[in-house]
């Protein structure tokens, strides 16, 4: 329980409908997209202005109460799970586009703006916001910034950090910081990009300047069916070797294909062991010139079938299937957990074989759907939490997959972040001084560890 004076001070800033303290109202905020973790906050506030966010942070600082900023709560790593008895600062009402400068291809937005909202805002000028996490219709830019969200087009376009030009943030003690130049390049250190992916540990972004790109004039989307994952994986290597810089290269395994087809009827090849989705994008003539190159590589790869999206509607359908993969596979099983480890692209085959072996050893099905172009795996581990030890075994299997990614020279997370779930494995990826320096930096920014305490790093305070 937090002292009454803490709640009184909040009540002086937030009218009753925007200050939640009743158990029932708080329960909606106990978890994020990873529902196996939950915690009870002391209160939730719903600010509508930057001034109100500042006030909330300063009240927390004064009372030594930990706080966590929350967008739509779609984190898949427990990153948006509250700190027990801390304050949740819900940012969904801060959803304004503050400054939109199409001629400079820049939009400045509040943290509660939805990912897709940015592209919709810019569409009339032929512009869009490139990072495209599958949760794009509901996830917020603030959350994307906190966890350096990725998506299917990262190989060519990069992650959220590559599209953030500046951030106005409130640091954990209530100080305001203007990070970055707000333009494509400037003089000075990369504080804004460093803030991206810091999982809320450096405070809360109040304004975010985003880089916009012209919509690609043409897409060419191909769906190939293969009789083995190995064959699909080898094809990725051949495509990369050919010198083509694709917009996206995705692979789905049999289990994922069948689940997706049941869910969205996108025309995925249900008899195939692997589906390969390759997309070219760019100026019309450029894509036109690349198509025969890609076709040659694909034909040599001996697919069972190749299907080219005939129009925008067919492309949208194929992508809908890919982006619905998590929820579709989820329908096959009572429960599932998803990982997002990364391996060097050339070791994908090895990684998948080992995941297969682990799946057999644990007796738990694992569906694989991943961003093959950048080696970003997404194994979905299916289990039944009602069975005794089901969750624990699934987590153990997930841990073995993370260790595999580290062993192969990759990373435990490509885009979901460490959060709470992968925290035990961060010290296996970063050893000794590499990890110490993260703690040192965290304490320098937030000595009392008030901001999103317990995520990414084990707190010293508790």
């Amino acid at each position, binding site marked *: 329980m937090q002292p009454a004076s803490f709640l009184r001070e909040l009540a002086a800033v937030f009218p009753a409908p925007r200050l939640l303290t009743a158990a029932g109202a708080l329960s909606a905020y106990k978890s994020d997209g990873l529902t196996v973790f939950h915690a009870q906050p002391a209160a939730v506030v719903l600010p509508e202005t930057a001034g109100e966010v500042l006030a909330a942070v*300063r009240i927390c*600082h*004064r009372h030594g109460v930990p706080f966590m900023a929350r967008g739509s709560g779609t984190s898949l790593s427990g990153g948006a799970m509250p700190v027990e008895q801390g304050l949740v600062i819900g940012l969904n009402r801060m959803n304004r586009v503050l400054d939109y400068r*199409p*001629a*400079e291809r820049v939009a400045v937005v509040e943290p509660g703006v939805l990912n897709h909202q940015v592209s919709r805002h810019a569409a009339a000028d*032929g512009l869009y916001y490139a990072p495209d996490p599958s949760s794009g219709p509901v996830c917020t830019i603030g959350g994307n910034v906190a966890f350096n969200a990725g998506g299917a087009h*990262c190989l060519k376009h*990069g992650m959220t950090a590559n599209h953030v030009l500046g951030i106005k943030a409130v640091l954990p*003690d*209530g*100080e*305001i910081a*203007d*990070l970055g*130049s707000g*333009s494509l*390049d*400037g*003089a*000075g*250190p*990369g*504080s804004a*990009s*460093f*803030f991206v*992916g*810091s999982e809320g540990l450096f405070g809360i972004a109040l304004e975010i300047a985003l880089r916009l790109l*012209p919509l690609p004039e043409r897409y060419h989307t191909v769906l190939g069916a293969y009789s083995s994952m190995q064959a699909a994986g080898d094809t990725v290597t051949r495509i*990369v070797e050919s010198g*083509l*810089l694709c917009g996206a290269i995705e692979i789905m395994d049999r289990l994922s294909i069948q689940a997706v087809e049941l869910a969205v009827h996108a025309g995925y090849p249900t008899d195939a062991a692997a589906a390969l989705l390759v997309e070219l994008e760019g*100026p019309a*003539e450029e894509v036109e*010139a*690349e198509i025969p190159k890609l076709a040659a590589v694909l034909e040599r790869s001996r697919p069972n079938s190749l299907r080219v999206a005939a129009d925008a509607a067919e492309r949208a359908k194929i992508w809908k299937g890919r982006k619905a993969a998590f929820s579709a596979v989820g329908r096959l099983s009572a429960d599932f957990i998803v990982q997002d480890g*990364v391996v*060097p*692209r*050339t070791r994908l085959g090895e990684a998948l074989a080992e995941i297969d072996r682990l799946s057999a050893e644990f007796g738990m099905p694992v569906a694989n759907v991943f961003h093959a172009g*950048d080696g*970003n795996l997404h194994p979905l581990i299916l289990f039944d939490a009602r069975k005794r030890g089901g969750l624990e075994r699934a987590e153990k299997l997930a841990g073995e997959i993370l260790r595999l990614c580290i062993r192969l020279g*990759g*990373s435990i*997370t490509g*885009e979901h*972040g*460490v959060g709470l779930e*992968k925290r035990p494995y*961060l010290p296996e*990826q*970063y050893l000794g001084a590499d990890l110490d*320096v*993260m703690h*040192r*930096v965290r304490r*320098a*920014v937030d000595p009392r560890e008030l901001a999103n305490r317990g995520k*990414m790093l084990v707190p010293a305070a508790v």
Partner: protein
Amino acid sequence: MDTPADLNELREAVLSRDAVRTTGGGSKPNLSRGANLSLAAFRGVVEYDPCEYTITARAGTPLTELQGILADKGQYLPFDPPLAERGATLGGTVAAGLSGSGAFRHGVVRDFLLGVRFVTGDGQIVFGGGKVVKNAAGFDFPKLMAGALGELGVLAELTLKVFPRPERVATLEARYDSRAAAAAAMRRLALSQVEPACLDLDSEHRLYVRLAGAHAALDARIARARTLLGHDAREIDDEACWRDSREFAWLPPDALLVKVGGSFDRLAAIVDAADVVRHRFALAGHVAWLACPVAAGVASLAERLRAQRLAGLVLLGGEAPVCVGRSVGDPLFARLRDALDPQAVFARSIVVQELAHAASD
């Protein structure tokens, strides 16, 4: 001058001095004034797997060497680093946060930096980031180091993302009567789907448009770019144009070179003053490179930059403050610098902005 050849020697060199000032190839003399630690001997590629699109090299590796190795495998550094012919190294380029005009299409040096090994002010050897093209684990130190001028640590080893080299490049030049007309054309190109690789505008209102891509597609794209330019566009020698741009061949003798980033309107308000003798906008007007006479110094420029809330970095051409105009540092950077270099062993040229608000109220 210490010239370490391995990581331990580098660490020893940092620990042995109260003040460490680093240099690489010496291509940005204003940044390496008073250097006592040279990374020129700490060089070479550590790891390169073309199929991964990644390369790891020691900080003292000259850009020309790196670019040669990449070109052999049909790849390149998409951020188009400047000053290579003057001997710029990878480490110096990252520390100064310098990108060339080609950064318009795919991003700046920071966007391509995946991993960094550095030595902190108290002699810790730290690895941050990763060696794969996608990584969201832990704090992203590589991003922070780009542009930090070595004030958070001596860069030792860097892992970069690289891309396949375009098959063909071509450049159009169009000259306009006014900056307004040139800027309008520049914006038409920037918003178009022709996807220019570079978009520069010089003092004489000449707009330079570079297109890069598949051989078979380029003629058609050039034709479309011509239409967008409006009038009088001619194809020029691509290689010479962008070499001159990267090497600042347009810089008059006895001039300081200052880099400023910001919105085009604010940058345009700066370049017209008498003490900017020449300039060149890059990245579709997001960056201005300014030439100021050495004799005049940067005092009045700094004043105008502050008025426009712009920050400048002085790279070449005689003695001047490193950072001018609005403070480029921020309270977050200040705290990070205290954490990574508690004894202030490294330079502290980066001026940190005044507190915007008291920490407690």
